[in-house]
């Protein structure tokens, strides 16, 4: 290969960015990375802080909590406690990626490979994103949401809207449909439908809460439960059934729910998404280097930063804060390639389906059809567990000691793998709380049930959240806990005193 490197800066220009982008795009195509068109925006550090605090939404409705995040970001950044991320990328079509002005040219190239081809192809290819998010309409939807919230603030007052959004945010994680595929509609349809929905919803609610007596003999003790099945999407349930809400309030609940739904896949694919993007920036830039397109100093700077990103501190390091998703994801991707290209006896035994197969096919397959939980339980190899020196700590409440459950040895591999996979199962650390019952004939009180896993109780914040729920529902709200024996115990209610 001829060594004819592209100018490596360190200062970048738009022309140079474009040159690098073209090279990266060429290599990405070579590896069959299918992406949305890229829209690369160069921004300043201050703008990056703005982007940060709006939790990655390019346009957001106004709310104090984003202001709080902004102030926090600003404080920590100014005190030098935190550097800013090099990039933010948005799951939209075209895919928007932010490059920060301050970065050097090698960093910009890294970010382009990482975000514009890594994350972007993941957004386009992964089944969760395909099912739950609609990249082409998200920007339009956010614009609609922002304008709608602003309109409501004008009409009903900032406080009113703010309180409502506070309550919705408290329940945001319970605003996700896990099984139903949401509709794909554009902003204009959304606006049109919004009006129709308003009228329709209100009429439905009225039907449910109809007070005209139906004849006395219908008053029975074994009234049917409502909802007939427990509902996990609490916000959806409230949007459709809360008796006292006005239609604009239902619409705002819907907005928060939609945003939550949009981010849901990201929460489930952190390891894969980052691993995939990191793997590709690494592979693409090395490919370019092998072609002689990148200078040595470029490579050194790139490798230095790459190494920092994928560093996994051990459990006893002062830098340790859990497993680094970049490190785990990147190493798993590299490991899959290794298993395909140079399988050992052990690999053949553990991964007969793909050991020795085409690595690119296998990686694409893995990217498209898994989420963190299933990805780990399918692809985490014994070699990687040894490399990471993984071990589990079993913390049983009744035992006076912590116990080492499994380590990276023959006996422990299976257990380690399922434990790590479980650690990435959202439902294992998001408390399982569902709408259980509404007393539609009586005091209209709403009952939720918490089913603990492994006897882990809810944290003290539950009382506060129940207050928010009460604000939305308008009538008494109870939270019950069901233990392993099926015994039901009330753990919170709002209002707190009986008989009010």
């Amino acid at each position, binding site marked *: 290969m001829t060594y004819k490197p592209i100018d490596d800066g360190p200062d970048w220009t738009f022309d140079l960015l474009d040159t690098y982008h073209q090279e990266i795009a060429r290599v990405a195509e070579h590896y069959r990375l299918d992406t949305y068109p890229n829209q690369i925006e160069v921004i300043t550090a201050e703008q990056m802080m703005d982007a940060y605090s709006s939790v990655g939404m390019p346009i957001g409705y106004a709310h104090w909590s984003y202001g709080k995040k902004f102030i926090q970001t600003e404080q920590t950044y100014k005190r030098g406690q935190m550097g800013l991320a090099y990039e933010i990328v948005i799951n939209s079509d075209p895919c928007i990626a932010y490059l920060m002005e301050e970065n050097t040219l090698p960093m910009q190239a890294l970010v382009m490979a990482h975000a514009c081809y890594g994350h972007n192809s993941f957004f386009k290819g992964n089944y969760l994103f395909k099912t739950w998010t609609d990249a082409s309409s998200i920007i339009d939807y956010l614009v609609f949401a922002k304008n709608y919230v602003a309109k409501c603030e004008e009409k009903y007052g900032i406080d009113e809207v703010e309180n409502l959004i506070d309550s919705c945010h*408290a329940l945001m994680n319970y605003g996700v449909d896990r099984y139903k595929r949401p509709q794909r509609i554009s902003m204009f349809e959304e606006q049109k439908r919004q009006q129709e929905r308003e009228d329709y919803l209100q009429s439905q609610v009225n039907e449910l809460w109809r007070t005209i007596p139906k004849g006395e003999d219908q008053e029975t003790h074994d009234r049917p439960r409502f909802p007939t099945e427990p509902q996990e999407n609490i916000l959806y349930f409230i949007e459709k059934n809360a008796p006292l809400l006005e239609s604009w309030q239902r619409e705002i609940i819907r907005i928060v729910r939609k945003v939550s739904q949009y981010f849901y896949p990201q929460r489930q694919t952190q390891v894969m998404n980052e691993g995939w993007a990191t793997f590709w920036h690494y592979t693409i830039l090395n490919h370019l280097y092998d072609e002689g397109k990148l200078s040595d100093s470029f490579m050194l700077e790139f490798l230095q930063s790459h190494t920092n990103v994928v560093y996994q501190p051990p459990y006893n390091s002062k830098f340790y804060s859990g497993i680094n998703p970049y490190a785990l994801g990147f190493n798993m991707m590299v490991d899959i390639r290794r298993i395909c290209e140079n399988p050992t006896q052990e690999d053949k035994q553990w991964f007969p389906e793909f050991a020795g197969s085409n690595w690119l096919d296998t990686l694409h397959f893995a990217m498209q059809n898994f989420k963190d939980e299933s990805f780990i339980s399918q692809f985490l190899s014994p070699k990687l567990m040894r490399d990471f*020196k993984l071990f589990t*700590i079993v913390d049983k409440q009744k035992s006076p000691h*912590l116990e080492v*459950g499994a380590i990276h040895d023959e006996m422990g591999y299976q257990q380690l793998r399922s434990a790590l996979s*479980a650690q990435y199962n959202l439902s294992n650390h998001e408390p399982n709380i569902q709408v259980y019952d509404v007393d539609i004939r009586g005091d209209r009180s709403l009952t939720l049930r918490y089913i603990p896993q492994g006897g*882990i109780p809810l944290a003290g914040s539950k009382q506060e959240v129940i207050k928010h729920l009460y604000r939305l529902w308008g009538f008494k709200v109870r939270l019950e806990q069901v233990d392993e024996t099926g015994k039901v115990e009330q753990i919170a209610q709002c209002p707190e005193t009986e008989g009010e």
Partner: protein
Amino acid sequence: MAHFIDRRLNGKNKSTLNRQRFIRRYKKQIKKAVSEAINKRSVTDVSSGESISIPQRDISEPTFHQGKGGDRELIHPGNDQFSTGDKIQRPPSGQGGGGGEGEASDQGEGQDDFVFSISKDEYLDLLFEDLELPNLQQSQLDKLMQMKTHRAGFCNDGMPSNLDIVRSLKGSMARRIAMTSSKRRELKELEEELANLLAEPVPPQQKIIDIEQRIEILKAQIAAVPFIDNYDLRFRNYERRPHPTSKAVMFCLMDVSGSMDQATKDMAKRFYILLYQFLTRTYKDIEVVYIRHHTQAKEVDEQEFFYSQETGGTIVSSALKLMDEIIQERYAQGDWNIYAAQASDGDNWADDSPQCTQILSSKLLKTVRYYAYIEITTRAHQSLWREYQGVANAFDNFAMQHIRSVEDIYPIFRELFKKNKDKQSAA
């Protein structure tokens, strides 16, 4: 394909609205912090914002999440010593042990305060809001005029030292071009004709001589146009315009006798701060003179002014005398805008009050632009108030008000600084 978009020129303040929302929401806490901070602040410190701290617990956003306890299995990397079945002592609760809440970063229960800074403008807004009015009303008080020299274009006449050489030479060049152009055109034509005639096989001598003569005349005429003339001269012009002076001095007079307690002084301090802020909106440089008095007056620094305690009787005229002396000594040139604010609880030695009127009417009120007297007391007025009422009726630039509690300060402040209006009714 990719587009590159340069967004750097877009506003960077996308979060401003959200930040304002945050401040709006926590106004109560922030206001509390601001009003606590005001007592720590120096009167003359208006350039800085304020650092605000709010308990973390007040601003947390609650969500359902798992608490401590129960059974869990957690994975860690970097095993260097453990094998299956090892028993480990539980780490003391409070550090480490928890785990499992990797994502629940903002649910911290009662950690440090949330500390952030607000800008100067936000600070002032909050400060004045505490007093229940959004913004200060700009007073139209006349200011002292001072003549100041400004450049005012160019003129044809002036002192040699104001001569603008470049402009003058430009004028000269233009004049020369204008005055000679027809002659030079003719000269050029004649020279061409002469050359043509000379080139002919038989040059017509007479014609050549005529042309040569004409050329001589033209050359002489061109040379006679002066290089520089009086018309060309341009002088920088200056004119003197009246200019409000931006220097002001603010006299703070306060009774520090035993009857003035710290709460009363804090109220007075708020008043002085307001006055100072108000003056900074009009004047660039402000000096503050602190005069405290009991039976004797003394010029002190701010710290001593607000926080030292004295006992004894009260003779107000001592402070007025001192103020007059200081004005004579330091601020007499006439380009100072002098303001004075006197705070007192109304006590004065009865025989002294007429003397105060005397000093005010004969000396001070002739030099000061505005003199405000505030009486901070819940009791009945005494002799000083009655004396000052007479002064207020006689002079436009004297105003007096009665403050009972903190809430009164701002409305009264505004009342005082309404332009020469309602004076009589206020008194």
